[in-house]
Each structure stands twice: as structure tokens, then as C-alpha cells.
């Protein structure tokens, strides 16, 4: 049904995208609403950094969250609204790098390869940035639309770690957001960055 509606929207030249609040973006969105239907956002990262928590915060759905690595072995899918448009969010099993070692990592990589996500949220543990950043670089190098999410900021701060978000953004040339997903902190900022990202990406 959804796909059909979008198709009709594309075919009607004068009607702006009805679900789009910013009229001037209507035309771009129409262009982008491809025949594949709903656009996808993938949540990736190492095991036990709070991917599922972030997923839960963004979708309002419930994926099981545990304090041990490897809880998510199935792929969870939920929905979120950005700029008044519906997006599919995919919660993936944990992966350490683009080179898969275990079965779940393979599943996660295939999502990146095959599902053409419009945003890739790389969730990392802010305490262990040294170990996690190489994967961020790999994702950026792969040409994927990365937003880096520095999660578990509260524990990092307690350890005395200070991260300069601006400098990080400048070096990586991708958006960087600090969150504490267990308490829902920073999720609104993340959503804001995601909306901005979608807009600039579609309209150039």
C-alpha cells in the first residue's frame, strides 16, 4: 500500500510529497522515493555497545537488551519518522569490522552490502574509542553514509574521558553525536542530525 501511494506521488507532477512538512523539499523527496519503497537506516557496531537500546529509543519498539555481547542474533526491524516521513530502522547483530568472523557478523555485513541504507548509525562505546574508531574509518572508506554515535558517554565521563565532538566531526567529516541511550539522553540530538543528514543527502 505504502509503495503504491509513493508511486502515485511520483507520477503526479504537481502534488508535493504529502508526508513532507517542508514544501521545498517535496520535489527532492519525490525523486528519492524510489520504487524500492521505504528507505532504510542501519544500526551497526561492536557487540554490547547499546545498539539495541539506541534502536529502542529511535523506534519506540522493543528489542531485547542485555548486558552481554551477542544478544541480538536476529535482525530487528522497526519504524521511525524523520521529517514527517517513515523510515525503516534495522538493528543488526554486533560486528567488529567489515571482515566477518562469525555467522552473525556475516548477517550484519550483508545488510550493509545489500539493503542500501540511507544512513548507517555506527554506535560505539565512548570508553573504548581506540578500538572502535578503526571500524568507523572502514565504514566511511566504504562510502557508506555514516553517523558516528558515541554511546555510554556517562561512563566515559566518569573515567575522565573528554571527547571534543567538533574536532571529531572535523577529522572524520561525518556527523558525530554523544548519547547515553540507556537513559535516552542525546537521542533528540541524534534524531535532529539524522533529519538534517537525510535532507542534505537527498537535496544535495
Amino acid at each position, binding site marked *: 500500500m505504502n509503495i503504491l501511494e509513493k508511486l502515485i506521488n511520483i507520477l503526479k507532477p504537481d502534488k508535493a510529497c504529502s508526508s513532507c512538512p517542508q514544501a521545498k523539499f517535496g520535489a527532492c523527496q519525490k525523486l528519492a522515493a524510489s520504487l524500492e519503497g521505504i528507505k532504510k537506516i542501519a544500526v551497526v557496531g*561492536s*557487540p*554490547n555497545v547499546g545498539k539495541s537500546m539506541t534502536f529502542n529509543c529511535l523506534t519506540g519498539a*522493543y528489542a*531485547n*537488551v*542485555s*548486558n*552481554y*555481547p*551477542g*544478544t541480538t*542474533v*536476529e535482525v530487528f526491524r522497526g519504524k521511525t519518522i524523520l521529517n514527517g516521513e517513515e523510515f525503516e530502522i534495522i538493528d543488526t*547483530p554486533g560486528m567488529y569490522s*567489515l*571482515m*566477518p*568472523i*562469525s*555467522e*552473525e557478523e*556475516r548477517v550484519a555485513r550483508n545488510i*550493509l*552490502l*545489500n539493503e*542500501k541504507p540511507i544512513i548507517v548509525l555506527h554506535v560505539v562505546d565512548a570508553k573504548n*574509542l*581506540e578500538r572502535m*574508531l*578503526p571500524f*568507523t*574509518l*572502514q565504514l*566511511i*572508506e*566504504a*562510502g*557508506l553514509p555514516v553517523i558516528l554515535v558515541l554511546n555510554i558517554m556517562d*561512563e566515559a565521563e*566518569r*573515567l*575522565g*574521558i*573528554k*571527547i*571534543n*565532538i567538533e*574536532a*571529531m566531526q572535523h*577529522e*572524520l*567529516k561525518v556527523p558525530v553525536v554523544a548519547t547515553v541511550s*540507556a537513559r535516552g539522553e542525546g537521542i533528540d540530538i541524534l534524531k535532529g542530525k539524522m533529519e538534517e543528514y537525510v535532507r542534505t543527502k537527498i537535496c544535495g
Partner: protein
Amino acid sequence: MSEQKYADDVLGSSFKKIELMLQADYGISKHSIGSLLLQGDDEIISLVKLKDPENFSKIMEAVNFAKSSYNDPLSYIIAIQNQGKANYIIERAMEYGPSKGISYREKISKVMIDPLTGIPIMLLVLYYGIYKFVGDFGAGVLVNFIENGIFIKYINPLVIKIFIKIIPWEVLRSLFTGEYGIITLGVRYAVALIFPIVTTFFIAFAVIEDSGYLPRLALLIDRLFKKIGLSGRAVIPMVLGLGCDTMATMVTRTLPTKRERLIATILLALAVPCSAQLGVILSLLEGNPKGLWVWVGVITLVFVFVGFVSSKILPGEGPSFYMEVPPLRLPKLSNVFLKTWTRVKWYFIEILPVFILVSVFIWIGQLTGIFNFLTMLLTYPIRWIGLPDKTAVAFLFGFFRRDYGAGGLYDIKKAGLFTGNQLVVACITLTLFLPCVAQFLMNIKERGWRAAVGISVFVLFFSFSVGYLVNLAFNTFGINL
């Protein structure tokens, strides 16, 4: 992305060469595909063979040339380069200040991993978390209250009265309120027996998992697990199996090698009782502490023995262990309840239809005489391991679900048909007995038809053999529990 310059080394020029030859669309950049090729990723190699068949042999030539030019594996060199870039960024964007009071957590963490202090802690967790909370409170107090205080006193008589009024036919009425009726047996088992046990278990488990204890337990037991061909990583599906073996079988995906996954699946099907079964067995052996110890001993022995033997038989290299150890945290109450709630809900939706279906099957079976025929068939192995004929029904239930079978034993014990020895033998055999239907289906999904059927046949024979041996040992040594 910014332009990167590699021109002055072999690796850099190989990257360039390969990127030029890659023509197809891979969903990620050509540089990344090249990098994965150079690192020897089999999946990507076959993908390139498929998508760029003309250039494939030339591409692989370039890959092999680059490989032969270095002493170290390319994956290592690329990782080092990548880490260097990461460190460069971190130097510019991160600062370390003084840390504020996290060291006591580190201390507790160390105490949990050190075998000297860790093993007593593990036993304490098991004793209070499982035995006291699930066994005594869930399977004892709560089951008693719901079963005797609610079902037998109020619901059963009321339901029987109502059904006598609305259904005049004895045969049809027995489908609902007979000995194996949908309400008197199916719903009663689900609500009075399984529900309180599973709920208490999931609460205990949620607290344990959210605290971050499990990975530390994994580190603690790693050495023992290595002996049976598993890494400490496998602790998590095993402990999860104490909750629900079906769920746990799915989680064996986190194990890195095929061999480990197969061994873990066998052990889950054979020697790891699920929470519902565990709870019922704890309440069966209540007041018989020696029997409980024999049960624990035999199951542990089987677990270690089968793990050890299968790791010797199944080909493949030994496991390596690495695991992220997350910080210890105080579990959040809301998350514990949310998690328990979703799990109990999931569990209930799964079991209730099965329980009702079993009642229907038995009803049909009784009408057609198949039920009696099957129970009669089962009485042979049952007698062989020295149990009263009536136990055959419980084992027949066990074909459908583990907990249902254990529930059957519960009724037989209440009727006073077991001696102490028989109860222990029955508990051991039924614990080892077949995986439930759901787990069997999961085995097929995860390990394939042949492995799943093979495992079930093995388990079926093995469980009765162990029952026989235990019974034999009791008789030979004149042990009376």
C-alpha cells in the same frame, strides 16, 4: 572522501590496480572491496568472481602479488594502517582527565573472574538465584498457591460443574475436563505449574544478565569448557539454555566455528534442562536433597562426558576465546521487568497452544486407541529402567515439551507412585530425554535436517541408557534414596 595517496608502496598501487578493474556495483566502495579482497575474504572473492567475471583472474593476480610482497598477512598490515589513522584522530579529539570512582567495580570484577573467589560466588549465585528463588519460591510457594489454592479448590470444580451443564456427552466433555482435558490438564499445567516457574526464572536471569555477570562467568569457566571443545563464549548459550533451550540454540550462532556450534547444540538438546523443566524437577526432588545431588552429579557428568567425546570425534581445530567484557552495572528495574514481561509473554504464546493441542491429540488418541498403544510401547523401555508403567504417559508428554513431561512426573509423584530411587531415575532420564518440538524445529533451522534428526535419535537412546545405568548402580550398591 578525501583522496588518499598510496602511490609509493606495493599495497597502495595494488589498491589502485584492483579498484580500476572492479566494474560492478557492490553497494560499498571499490576501495573497500579491494581491501577485503586483499585481506582474503572468501565471500567477497566469490562475489567478485560472480559480478566481474572477465577481470576476475587479473584481479586475483594483483591480490596474490601484493600478498607475496609482504612478510606479514595483509589483514594485519591494513589493520595497523587503519589503527594509525584512528589514533591520529583520537589524539586530536580526545583527552584523559582523572577518573572518578570506578575502581571498586574493577575490584568486584576481578573477584568474580579469579577461580579462588569466583567459584564460590558462582555457587552463591546459583544457590540463591536458581535454587532458592526459582526452586523454593517459584516452584514451591507460588506453584502450591496457584495449583492447590486456586485451581483444585475453585477453578476445576467450577469448570467441571459448568461443562456438565452445557455438554451432555461424556466423550466430548472429557476433551475439556477429563483426566487429560484442555482445562484440567493443559491450562492447569501452563498457568499453575509453568507460569510461576518461568516468571521467577526470567526475573533471576534478567538481573544476572543485566549486571554483566555472564561474560565474567564465561571467563571463569573458559578453561573447563576448552576441555570439552567449547570456548568460554559458549557459556552464554548454555546459561541461556537454562531459561529456554530453543532460544539458546538460536544464540549458538554467536559461536565462531561450525564444530563449536554443533557441540553446543548437542549439549543443549541433551543435558541442559530449561527453566520450566528445571523448576518442576527442583520441586519434584524437594525434600530429597541426596536425590537432588545425584541428579546434579549425573547431569553434570553427562554434560562433560558428551562434550569431551564429541570434541574428540568431531573434526576441527580447538576454539579460541576472545570476548568483550562489559562493565558491571546495577540492573535497571524497569529493564528487568520489561524483559521478563516480554519473555514470559513470548513463552506463553508459544506454549499455550501446544498444551491445548496435546490435550486434543491425547483425546483423539484415546478415542482411537493409539494413545494406549503408544503408552504400552513406551512401557518397555520404562520398565527396563525400573519405573512404574504410569510414567510412560509422562514420557509421551515429553515428546511434545520438556516441561510438560516433567509436569507429568509431578502428578505421578503426587499420587505417591514413586519410590525415592525411581523418582531420581525418572528425573534424570526425562532431563536428558528428547528436546521439545520447538527446539527440534530450531535444530533443523540452525543445523539442518540430518544433524537435527541425528541428535534426536542419539538423545533418545542415550537418555534411556543413562537411566538404565543409574538404576543398575542403585540396585547393585543397594542405594536407597
